[in-house]
């Protein structure tokens, strides 16, 4: 090598793990991604519930009793918040993923998102009603 290259490019340091603490936008992104932990754990809990249901009335009663433990209540509250955040961000993104064109114009984002929010509310109410929660 005839000449040493003296150029010193600026390399911006990025923390390997906690980079998302640097900006609120990154933190909202991570909050959205962390929702998968709660949705996944909750679904696995449902699988355990099916196991207890298959084992008979006593096992099912034990499962219902376990749902009332303080840890289960706290988990449910976090899971509810994170899963709702997933729903909100998912429907907010829907018009970007599925733009609807009518003639020469695109349907406004808020119309597509709004229709999904309304559908979400309707589905939730119907499930609550069918399950006899009212």
């Amino acid at each position: 090598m005839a000449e040493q290259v003296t150029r010193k490019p600026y390399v911006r340091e990025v923390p390997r793990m906690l980079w998302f603490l640097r900006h609120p936008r990154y933190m909202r992104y991570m909050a959205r991604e962390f929702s998968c932990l709660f949705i996944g754990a909750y679904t696995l809990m449902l699988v355990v519930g099916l196991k207890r249901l298959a084992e008979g009335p006593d096992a099912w009663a034990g499962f219902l009793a376990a749902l009332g433990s303080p840890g289960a209540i706290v988990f449910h509250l976090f899971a509810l918040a994170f899963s709702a955040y997933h729903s909100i961000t998912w429907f907010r993104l829907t018009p970007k993923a599925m733009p609807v064109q009518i003639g020469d114009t695109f349907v406004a984002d808020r119309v597509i998102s709004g229709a999904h929010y309304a559908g979400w509310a309707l589905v939730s109410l119907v499930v609550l009603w069918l399950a006899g929660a009212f």
Partner: protein
Amino acid sequence: MATSNKPIVWGPFAAGGTLTAFLTPVLILLTLLAGLGHAPDLLAYDALRAFAAHGIVKLGLVVVIFLSLWSAAHRLRITCYDLGLRADTLVATLVYAVAIAGTVAAAAYLLRLNPV
């Protein structure tokens, strides 16, 4: 020709993301109500046992559980990468295996519920 398995893992992720967006919060609300001592009628043993014994309901539950677990697994895989864990093949194998195992277990428990 370049081949990619991306559509295969991404399809159920998108379907599961949509399904969980519509359904998971209200399901959580149902079991939260049960935990708070206001269990919805459907969660009584006899009612739920009869409900889950229907063939269509069994199929529906397996689909909901598979798509929910798969989309969570896919997102967890991407999140691991974002957090600097770059052993993607290992992570992907683990999270998808848990999703499939959970689905198979759910199907096995449901098959034990014969119509009364």
